[in-house]
């Protein structure tokens, strides 16, 4: 279920956590049930294993509870939660000395993209394939290389509004719209071979 009209619920549950006592457990449970699946999916899109993703989700919520009193309200709560989630993931990458591809600079990015597109132009789509099969292959390849961008496209697909996507990727709404537009360009380059199916349809 997309996280749309839930800002008030999130704040109420977070307040329960800050309150402490028996209500804290109630707040933790509610926030966990809402955010844990999304955090987990984000980590999987970043190339983490299921086991690592689960561990980092746990670590994220422990930190949310431990540091709940440090939330000042200067930024939206969702952005604060996602910041903790991302930091926990980055801590994991630092510990394991793995660098997610979405952290490439522009030059590295362009080189990687060009290589990916060049490789794919040599792949002829199977004769009896469909547009949908081709696009699925293309997206899976795209997700392996550009996990963060694939995750953003997934959020668009699921109906998340710009504000929630902005909180996830830690950008302003305007920068987020531009980022989404760039994500479209990137995925379209991966789906170039699939245009054959469109003309054949």
């Amino acid at each position, binding site marked *: 279920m997309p996280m749309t009209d839930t800002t008030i619920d999130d704040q109420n549950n977070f307040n329960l956590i800050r309150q402490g006592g028996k209500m804290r457990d109630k707040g933790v449970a509610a926030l966990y049930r809402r955010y844990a699946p999304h955090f987990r999916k984000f980590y999987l899109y970043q190339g983490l294993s299921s086991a690592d993703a689960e561990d980092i989700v746990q670590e994220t919520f422990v930190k949310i509870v431990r540091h709940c009193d440090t939330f000042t309200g200067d930024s939206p709560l969702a952005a604060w939660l996602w910041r903790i989630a991302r930091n926990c993931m980055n801590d994991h990458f630092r510990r394991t000395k793995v660098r997610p591809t979405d952290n490439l600079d522009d030059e590295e990015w362009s080189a990687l993209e060009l290589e990916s597109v060049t490789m794919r132009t040599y792949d002829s789509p199977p004769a009896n394939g469909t547009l949908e099969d081709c696009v699925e292959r293309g997206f899976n390849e795209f997700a392996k290389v550009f996990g963060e961008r694939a995750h953003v496209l997934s959020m668009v697909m699921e109906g998340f509004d710009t504000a929630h996507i902005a909180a996830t990727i830690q950008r302003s709404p305007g920068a987020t719209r531009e980022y*989404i537009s760039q994500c479209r360009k990137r995925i379209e380059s991966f789906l170039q071979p699939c245009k054959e199916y469109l003309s054949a349809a």
Partner: protein
Amino acid sequence: MNKDEDQDWLDALAGKQNANADPEVARRAAALRQAIQRHNAAMKSGEADVEIGLHKLKFRLRREDLSGGERHTFLSNRYFQFAMAATVVLTVGLTMRLYLHEQLIQNEAEIMRGGGDRQIVLAPDPEARLKQLTSELDRLGIKYQIERKERKILLKAHGVDPVKDDVATFLEQNQIKTPVGMDVELDIRPMAKP
């Protein structure tokens, strides 16, 4: 890619119908939507997995003393109770030594700590206390063993899951510290009578 086409593509990706959208753009976006749905289905965790994760989290929060404020109160009570019990025992022991020539308990800390993860329970009637505790453990379906050494009764309970509400209530009402693992050892000793 112009802005309108971009928006048409995004709308189609999100599953929104738009009769004015370019059919090719709409079809590509619809195919991508389907691809993402399949990709996500492969990584989706079930409700049961979320609940298991929540259960683990609750356990960890309790262990790290981040679960609610009641545990602090409970711990404070427990140490207060031990401090009171130690004071009573020392006072009574001194009195008894003076007037009844019984042996003084030498080390206050011995009463407070016990050995390792063992928790000491001082009771006026250890047998009655044992009966009360085992009765509750039976009700909760928690397995236990009883060992007797000299005047001490050792009650070892296994599979004590503090995340379960009824178990947490049992621990709290009996002033038993939440175990780090799932085993509880209680050393039930007689409390000296004044």
